[in-house]
């Protein structure tokens, strides 16, 4: 879409939009290469033959496109690669794809591939591989989330060995970003039909090959020769499963049994800071928890009840007590101010009197009894935050009973219960989250929100290449979401992890995509 690209460059030069927004949009449109943004991070150290041991849950990854957690993706990410890449700065960069370009109506995307990429079994990486991979996602027997995520893909066309064309049912500006979803690594064309677990024949394009894999225990990756990109400094990566107890992982780290923890949360900071040989790493992130209410189920089908819950909540206190004040207060709209497509909205002020009033209005003058489902899927802080909400709400006469379930049990019902706490990880764009979670009839619409205005605003944002217009449209969508009072989204969490003081060059990724391209053990 050459017009749009030219227009953006022009606007950027005249200072019509912020430079970062424009760059991002250019990247989305596949024109980033021209601005010289893509490429490997400079200054990577010379390769050394050390081992990094990462404490990480080692889960099954028979089909990399069907995993449901980040942990396995962070293991195969070192062997399998994505078409695009989003680094810690949130900017989209080409990776296996050399460049891409949408049609004017954003319904057709041409993706051209790098020509110097070889699979670890010697085959060349080609458009066939991309087509086979996407076909695998969308196949009838597929159990991958991609099946719903890419439900609007109408066809994949191999234009020539290094050019694929994707046809969409509706305009989707977020397509390149979506290609970096954890379940979207490019698989060898032989994999889909093989019927064997990927771990049995771990063919990949990445810098490492899977050397040893044992579920629940360890995955060992060894650097391979002939990688197309820059050679990572560490020779061996060992992902070691230490169980779920972070305090145990921390003491293991301090004792030198591992070098990097996958993650910890704010409540583990006091312990980590007291252990010798441990360095805490953190970053800002758009991950959050949402107390979401099902707008189609009583009593939450009444806006006044939802609003009363929202008004009674003290988001700042939830952050302070529930997450040790590590993060920033959010405004119940599920797009973070530091996300590239954020449109400003005013926060909701706590107003207990108003909440009581609304409740009485809705026919609950003596307060109301609610049940909140909590699964502690990310840790006990969820339950703690819920308890603070419980206290807040009780001020307004809303009596919340907590129904705490084991994580796995909770995950089977998370989207169905009337009132629950859901953890949302960071998506590169706010609009991806909104599209996934709040659009009428969308895959993960746990609130069952059906609001044409919201859908329209979101569509406008997703269609618009103008960063200013995009932000404005997003602002509208956020305001509608906030006003619908379907969620109490109290805070944005800082992400934490701990590494050994000997670890160099390790940066924490806000979206949970661990990156070992420059980390090594001194």
């Amino acid at each position, binding site marked *: 879409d050459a017009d749009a690209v030219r227009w953006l460059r022009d606007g950027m030069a005249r200072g019509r939009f912020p430079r970062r927004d424009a760059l991002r949009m250019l990247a989305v449109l596949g024109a980033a290469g021209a601005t010289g943004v893509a490429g490997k991070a400079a200054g990577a150290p010379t390769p050394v033959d050390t081992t990094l041991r990462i404490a990480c849950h080692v889960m099954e990854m028979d089909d990399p496109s069907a995993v449901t957690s980040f942990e396995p993706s962070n293991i195969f990410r070192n062997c399998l690669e994505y078409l695009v890449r989003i680094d810690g700065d949130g900017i989209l960069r080409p990776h296996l794809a050399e460049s891409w370009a949408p049609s004017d109506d954003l319904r057709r995307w041409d993706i051209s591939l790098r020509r110097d990429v070889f699979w670890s079994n010697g085959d060349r990486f080609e458009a066939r591989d991309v087509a086979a991979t996407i076909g695998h996602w969308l196949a009838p027997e597929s159990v991958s989330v991609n099946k719903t995520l890419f439900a609007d893909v109408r066809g994949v066309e191999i234009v020539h060995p290094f050019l694929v064309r994707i046809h969409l049912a509706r305009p989707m500006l977020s397509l390149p970003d979506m290609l970096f979803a954890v379940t979207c690594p490019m698989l060898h064309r032989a994999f889909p039909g093989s019927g064997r677990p990927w771990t049995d024949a771990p063919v990949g394009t990445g810098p490492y090959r899977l050397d040893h894999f044992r579920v629940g225990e360890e995955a060992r990756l060894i650097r391979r020769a002939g990688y197309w990109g820059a050679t990572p400094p560490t020779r061996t990566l060992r992902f070691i499963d230490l169980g779920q*107890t*972070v*305090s145990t992982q921390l*003491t293991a780290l301090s004792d030198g049994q591992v070098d990097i923890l996958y993650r910890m949360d704010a*409540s*583990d900071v*006091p*312990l980590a800071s*007291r252990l010798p040989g441990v360095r805490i790493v953190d970053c800002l992130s758009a991950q959050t928890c949402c107390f979401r209410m099902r707008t189609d189920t009583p009593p939450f089908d009444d806006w006044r009840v939802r609003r009363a819950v929202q008004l009674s909540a003290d988001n700042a*206190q939830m952050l*302070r*007590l*529930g997450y*040790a004040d590590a993060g920033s207060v959010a405004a119940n709209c599920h797009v973070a101010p530091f996300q590239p497509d954020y449109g400003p909205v005013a926060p909701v002020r706590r107003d207990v009197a108003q909440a009581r009033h609304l409740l009485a209005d809705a026919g609950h003058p003596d307060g109301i009894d609610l049940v909140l489902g909590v699964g*502690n899927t990310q840790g*006990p802080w969820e*339950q*703690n935050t*819920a*308890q*603070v909400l*419980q*206290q807040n709400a*009780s001020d307004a006469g809303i009596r919340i*009973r*907590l*129904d*705490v*379930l*084991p994580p796995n*049990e909770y995950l089977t019902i998370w989207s169905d219960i009337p009132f629950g706490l859901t953890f949302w990880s960071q998506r590169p764009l706010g609009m991806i989250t909104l599209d996934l979670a709040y659009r009428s009839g969308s895959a993960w619409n746990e609130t069952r929100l059906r609001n044409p205005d919201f859908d329209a605003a979101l569509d406008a944002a997703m269609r618009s290449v103008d960063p200013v217009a995009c932000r404005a449209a997003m602002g509208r969508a956020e305001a509608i979401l906030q006003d619908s009072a379907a969620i109490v989204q109290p805070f944005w969490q800082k992400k934490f992890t701990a590494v050994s003081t000997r670890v160099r060059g390790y940066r924490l990724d806000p979206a949970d995509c661990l990156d070992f391209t420059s980390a090594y053990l001194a």
Partner: protein
Amino acid sequence: MRRVGVLPLRAWIALGVAGFWLLCAFAAPLLSPFDPLRSGSPLLLPLARDGMGMHLLGTDMLGRDILSRLIWGARPVLLWSVLATVCAYAVGIGGGMAAGYASGAADRLFSFLATVMQSFPVLILYLLIVMRLGASGFNIIVAVTFSTAPAIFRIVRALVAAERGKDYVLAAVMQGERPWRILLFDLLPNVAGPLLVDACLRLGYTAITIGLLGFLGLGLPPPTPDWGSMINEGRGMAIVFPHLILFPCLAISSLMLSLSVLADALGHRGDSTPLRRTNA
């Protein structure tokens, strides 16, 4: 060992400790200095103050007063452990008396069932209950009943089988007394002594079990301040803030200890009171 009245001194001390927790359970609103569900400043050490006042035992990660939670926590702990123990005893005594008295096929059947239940590892039992039922006080009852009723059954059965051969039971049989009356009025009161001892111990273990169930995600739902959940919630930070679990642990252990000592004393009462020795 010094004796005061019918029991040794240590038994009175134990009774005092158990009584203290009972008092806490009943008079929690009067005794607790703060609302156990209100948050102040988080993670205060013992004797620290904040806007609410002085926290003798500090506050937890949500800034709630640990002392108040301990006092209120006595309620669910005592309530659920007593209920669960009573339930387990009802099942165990029912089956045990029937099996011990009837002998023969019924005995074999019940004993077999008990063996089957006992060979089921307790942990798996708990986990199956989590998988099937989720977390609630009711589950504590189910879990404790399933895991301890067989043991109680065995004790009762052995006691009844031993007692059944005694002359007073034979005398009742000879008179033509109905079996259920013999069980209820003759046997039960006479096996109650050892059972009481056993019950004391089991009550203590149940308090610990409630904590373990909390650990497995089966305990009472928050924010109910029960000691097991307090330990469970504080576990992650306990290495740095031991006071989070030290006090609830002391509470559970003191209850458990006092019940053990009491059981010990009750159990020894028979042998250590030779004053009313019967010469057979």
